[in-house]
């Protein structure tokens, strides 16, 4: 389901691979992303540019991934549409996740923190 691209400095961009991330596919997204973490990925950028809808199941999957990374690494998000930004605001997830406009700005920000 997900698509991932590895960059230098061990950054991994993960794209959910689904226009809608809901109860029907949230677990698959979570399991596949966690598999990347178990494989050694510690600096994740989840790019939601191709995702237009996210419900509580999708958000729960994302927080599940964040908990799995824990203090071992970073997880940031980018590419949120206006709808997804609204979802993050309602659930106060804009206080939990660092949010960037797009993949390149997220990569730059994480590289500067390194």
């Amino acid at each position: 389901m997900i698509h991932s691209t590895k960059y230098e400095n061990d950054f991994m961009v993960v794209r959910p691979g689904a226009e809608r991330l809901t109860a029907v596919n949230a677990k698959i997204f979570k399991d596949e992303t966690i598999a990347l973490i178990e494989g050694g990925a510690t600096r994740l950028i989840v790019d939601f540019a191709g995702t237009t809808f996210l419900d509580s199941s999708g958000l729960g999957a994302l927080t599940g991934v964040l908990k799995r990374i824990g203090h071992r690494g970073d997880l940031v998000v980018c590419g949120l549409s206006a709808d997804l930004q609204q979802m993050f605001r309602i659930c106060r997830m804009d206080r939990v996740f660092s949010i960037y406009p797009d993949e390149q700005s997220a990569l730059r920000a994480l590289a500067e923190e390194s």
Partner: protein
Amino acid sequence: MSYTIPPSLDAVDPLVRRLDAELRDHLDPEVLFRAMLSVTEVLTNIVQHCQPRTPGAVIEVRLARNEAGATITVFEPEGAAPFDPRQAAGDPAGAEALAENGRGIGLIQACTDHIDYGAVAGRHRLCLRFEPRDAAAHAAPEADQNRP
């Protein structure tokens, strides 16, 4: 306008997409997203928790539009245990920021302008009403108190 779906997760998204298409020109984009999110959470909750006892029971969804906005009425499957989301504690921001579950009811409450729940002709139904314009987005700006 009336739709029926089986109590299956696979049936939820196609129905929500149809509702989205019907309401796209009727509600502001912010309201439309809140409406689709609310109805998605309601339908998912019914599928995952309502456990209808009648074989072949379906979920019925009715859509009504007028100048006051849109009303989405969800009739629970026959035999399902009643569940009134207004009586459940709900804050989608929640006490635990990293909770993986439990935001659905809070989202329904936060995203819906008016919620009604009750029995009609022996069937439990949830009414979600949405005003066509997002009140916060269209609030008049406060006067600049620093302006001379």
